[in-house]
Every structure is written in structure tokens, then in C-alpha cells.
């Protein structure tokens, strides 16, 4: 059995503070409702995203996209696949 924690892709969870990334894909690991809601909020393929801040334990992120700010926990950050903007 494979360990889930070994990452197969670069996710927003590994993103460094202040660096700009492009969303490549949203993974559907947290159920359809969360998957849809991320789309509603503008986290779709090709959008620019940047992590602004992390909380005390580093598990909650503050990100900016589409000109506004949003905060969520690393379980959501994990399903957002990103790539570096060159």
C-alpha cells in the first residue's frame, strides 16, 4: 500500500511565501462539494495564486488570487496542483 503523504505533484501546500504560482489542476480528494466550491471561488485551471501568510502552526494559509484574499487549511492546499510561473 502506498503512503498518501508522498506527494506525486507540487501542491500549494509546498508553495513558498510570496512566490507566484499557476494552478494546474484541482484534485477531487475532499469530496465534490469542496471541489465545486473551489471553482466557485475562482480557483480554476490557469489562475495565478500566491501564498501571503501562514498561521502559527503553519497549517492555515492566506492566499491571494483574482485580486482578493482567501484563507483555508492545508488539506485544501494539498489538492491544488500548481506550477511555477517562469
Amino acid at each position, binding site marked *: *500500500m502506498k*503512503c*498518501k*503523504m*508522498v506527494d506525486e505533484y507540487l501542491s500549494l501546500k509546498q508553495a513558498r511565501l510570496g512566490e507566484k504560482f499557476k494552478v494546474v489542476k*484541482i484534485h*477531487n480528494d*475532499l*469530496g*465534490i*462539494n*469542496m*471541489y*465545486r*466550491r*473551489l*471553482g*466557485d*471561488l*475562482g480557483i*480554476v*485551471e*490557469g*489562475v495565478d495564486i500566491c501564498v*501571503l*501568510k*501562514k*498561521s*502559527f*502552526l*503553519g*497549517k*492555515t494559509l*492566506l492566499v*491571494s*488570487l*483574482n*485580486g*482578493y*484574499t*482567501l*484563507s*483555508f*487549511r492545508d*488539506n*485544501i492546499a494539498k489538492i491544488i496542483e500548481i506550477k511555477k510561473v517562469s
Partner: protein
Amino acid sequence: MEEILLIGNPNTGKTTLFNNLTKSNEHIGNWHGVTVEEKRKKFKIDDKEFELVDLPGIYSLTALSFEEQVAVDYIFKNLDKLVINICDINNLQRNLYLTLQLLELGINTILVINTMGNKKFYNEVNLDKLQSELGIKAIIINADNKKDIENLKKLIKNQEEIDNNIKIPQYYNLFSNFDDFFKIKKVININDNMLSNFITIKVLEKDENIMKKFNISYEISDKYVNKIAKIRYDYINFISKRFITRNKHSAYGESKLDKIFLNRFLSLPMFLLIMATIFYLTFFSVGAYLSSFLGDFIQNVLGAKLIGFVSQICNIPWVIGLFESGIVAGLGSILSFLPQVVLLFLFLSILEDSGYLARIAFSFEDIFKKVGLSGKSVYTLLMGFGCSATACLTARNMEDKNSKIKTAMLTPYMSCSAKLPIYAVLGGAFFGASNVFVVFLLYFIGVVVAILLSMILEKTVLKSKSQSFILEFPPYRVPKIKRIFNIISDNLKQFIIRIGSVIFSMNIIVWLLGSFSFGFNYIPTDGGISMLESLGRFLSPIFVPLGFGNWGATSALIAGLVAKEIIVSSIAIFNGINASETSVNQQIQSSIMNPNSSVFFTQSSVLSYLVFCLLYMPCIATMGVLNREIGIKWTFISILIEFILAYLISFIVYNVYNLCLTYGLGFILILLLGIFIILFSIIFVVKHLKSKDKCKLCGYKCKK
């Protein structure tokens, strides 16, 4: 009369617009999900009457939380009505996502772009071009500006009169290119073409609520969900490139203040400091000063003059007694806390308006997650310091049912403003200046009990299912003077109404039951045992182990179930406070220290009484809200837990304090420390034993 729906994203100023259009005073705040149920009110535009319906904020026509469901259901029931879609100009791109769905549904829409009262916006909009592109009327307003509201009214009247033919957004045909589109459309049995198209898209988006509502069953993969969102956002990008210019580089909600408030290490101490300051100011400095001022006024004017007047015109002892102890002493003991209660609500509203709440939610999310709550609970719990009943209602913006039940159950442990007089009067009598520590300790106990209870519930019956926490960050805002006056006058009004209705009538009931025997003899003149005393004597043995087994203290607790303020006023009534001499509260304080009074305490029993008041069942209003929000079963369970916890913890406090008095503090501290060390080592060993078969990488049992 035409109904108009007010729809928009959370925290875009819907209720502000509602208040200004209908001249009402509904609660607003700088946080999403302040409005949790529909609110309606009539208003007139040149003699034509309309009814405006304010709905909770939504991001899309697919609901996720309970309050969003309210809004979405309402929209689908009223598809033929005019909709005012309000958008925040600073975050227009995201807000337009909802607008597009309204257009897809063919709803007669007015787009209201709210500048949120800012002078500099993040976006500049070319309104004419945007209107012709979207095919709807749009207007840019400041929801607080009278002239803008008048313009909007004109627009509403014009729009309402014409039967608008909505232009379907141009990207719409991209949806029908999907393979499953026509297959689903065939399954749906709706005549209206536009509605059936829209429902088809919602099925493609796997919206279970809508599928249930329209009785559709169709198995489909989730590959379209993100594609549909992307098509809409691509269109928004297309619009925004042409008609919207960005003025600022920073993101909306980003602020330099966050360097301090969101600092990894400073954020939590900062919050504690702010809360401590708020409670210190309300309880001890400004609030206490204003209270003693009002107390003097009550005693001199209401007390001395009113009672003098009554005894002049009527010489029946029980009438004078009713005025003296039932009305003046009973109400006076609470009324003098008016400034403190208003001040507390003012501070809480400022916290709410400033946008700081979202930052607290962010900072607390990690810790709250560990104890089984969500950062979003912060709002409900903080509002619980004001009033538990209204706070419990806001638990609706939780997404999953278990978190909602948990949050609502824990809110009563946040000591509400009605308990403030109890702490001040009873604690002040025995602890004097060091009452500061007692009050802080009480609030602290409430919070700790809530956290522990939440941990237990999370591990046992109420495990949170959905692990989502998504929170939009509002910008910091400085509350306006006008708004501060509004809050003060609103709370003054509510407090006085509360005193005039519930507390006034309850005081008279308590006085009647406390001053007459079952044979209707007036006790002070005829002697005998009053009705409440008989009841109190019957129940008081329960509380003997807690140190306050006298009938008065017991009866006051029962009366306090109606409203917590009544605990203090009942004590005033039972102890026969004579309102015309010195300050009511000083008299209560000296009477409860006298063992001959009906209600009396010692230092240890008053502590246990305060803890009991903090933790035992909430008032009837809160129970009613709980019953409506989480059902009779959970309400009953939470009441039971509250009583048991109150009893246990009061028992511990009473006995430990007594032991401290006999054996000295140091001995007890060492004893407690020993118990803690043993407990922690047991927990540590158990955890260590458990973790053996866990994966070294992730810490979970991922390997079989």
C-alpha cells in the same frame, strides 16, 4: 405589491443596502454570514409599494452551508421576481460569478455595484459598456449615500415596469458542447427551456440539492465541475480586461496591519490582550464608573422619591413592599449595569466591524481544528459573550451538521452579558478589588470547559465530517461615528425593553411568590413561610455539597432560567433590600455577607455559586434557539451536560477552596501539580503505545 430579492456574495453590504432602502436597523458586520435568515420589509417608491427580501450571502447557486441553502431555495421559489444583485466593486471579478448564474437562469436582474463607502476603489468600471455586454441595468452606488439610494430607487421602478428580456451570456453554447448535456436535458422534464438548460448545468456540476428538488437521478462523472467554473471565469476575465481597470496592486483584504495581527507568534497573545482589555474596560474602569453614576441616580430619584410618593398616597404595607423591593430594588440592581452591558456590546460590534474577526478565525483555525471546531466558530463564540441566544443563531454558517451542533452547544459557555451583574455584585462583595482576578478566572473557566467539551464531543459522538475551512478576508475598516451611535442606541433600546418586559414581570412574580405564603398572607407583616421558600427548601438540599444550600440562592437560580439578570434581582428581593437608603447594589453586597439573610454566602460558597451561574443551563430564549437550530434531542443533551458540569465543577471549586483555607495554598498547589503530572504521564504513555503501528512519514495508519 412586488417582491424584490436582494442577492449577493457574503459581506458585500446587502444588509446595509436593505437598511437604507427600507429605513430599518438590521444587524450588520464586517464578516461573511452575519445575515443567516431571510429578512423582509416593505418600502415605497413614489406611492408604489415593494417588499424587499434580504437573503444570506451566497457565492453560487449551489449551496454549501445551511444559511446558503436558505437563500438558494428562496431564489428557486421566486424565479419571476426582480433581483437586486449587489457586488463589491473591489472584488468585482469574483462577485460577477454569481451574476452570471443569475443571467443563465434568466432572472430579471439589476446589478448594483457597491463602493463600500471607500474613496479609492480597487477597480474602475466602465459602466455603459458593462451594461451592454451583460444586457442588464447596472449602477454604481455607495450603499450609505442617500442620493445614490434615490437613484437606485428610480432604477428599480423603471426596471420593475418593463418586462425584461434577459440576454443569455455568450459563453452559454460552450456548455451545450458537453457530451452529456442533451442526455441530461432529456431526463429533465421541465417545459421552460431556460430553466431546463440551467438545471442541466447544475446536474453537470453535480448539485445534489437541485437534483433532489427537481427529482432527477443521473449518474455523471465530476469532470465537468471545474470546467464549467473555468468557462465562467474565462468570460469574466474577458469582460474585466475590456471594461475593468485595476487601480491597486495589492489584493483586496491584504493589509500592512496584518504584519502585526497575523504575525505567527504575536497573533494569539495579541488577541488575548485585546479581549482582556475589553473586559477590563467594561467591568472595572469606564463601565464601573458609569454604572456607579447610574446607581446613584436610581437610588436618589427612583428609590427615594418614588417610594416616598407611593407611601404618601397609599398606606397598605404590601403595596409599598411591592414598589420598594419588587420594583425599585429588583430593577435598580440590574438597571445600573446598563452602561456596562452597552459598552460590552459596543466593543464586540467594533471587533466585528473592524474586520479583525477574520484574522482571529485564521489564527485560531489550527488550534480549533485540533479540538474539533472550525475557525469559523470564532464568530459565534465571540458573539456569545454578548448574548447566547442571538449568537447560537449564527452557528448556521457552519458547513457540516456536527460542527454546527457543537458550536451551538458550546456558545452558552461563553459567559453572556446578562451574567455580568452577578459577577460584579456577588464577587465584588467578597473579593473587593481582587474581583478582577475572579472575573477573569470565571471567563477563563467558561472557555476551558468549552474547549474540553468540544474535544470530548469530537472524539465521541459529534465528529466533524467536512474538513473544509474557507474564509474570505475582508479589509480592515474603521467604524464610523454614526455606526457607533447606532450600536449604542440600538443596545440601549433593547436593554430597556428587556428590563421593561421580561425582567419587570419576572421580578413581580418572584416578589409575589417570595412575599406571600400559600395562604396568601403577606410575610413581613403576618409571618409564615413564602411559596418560593417552601419550594426552595425542598430543592436546596441538592446544593448543600456546593455550599449554597439556602432556599434563596436555590430559588434565584430557578428564576434565573428566565433571564440571568434575575438572579441578582431575586437576591435583592429575597433579602428585602430597602431601596430608599443607600445604593441598591451595596445593600445586596452587605446583606449576602450576613448569615441571617435569606440569601447568604461565604467566600468559598460564593465562588462555587458564581461558577454554577457561569455553567448551568442557559436562559429560556437560548434554549428556544437551540431547539430550533439543533433539535430537541441535542438541546436536551446540552442542558443535561451543562447541569452536570456546573454541579461537578462548583463542587470541586468549593471543596478545593475550603481545603486551601484550612491547609494553606502551597499544600494544595503541590497536590494539584502531582495529580497533573500523573495524568499527563498516563496520557503520554497511552499515546506512545498507540503510535507504534503508525506510518513514520505521515503519522497515520496508512499501511495495512
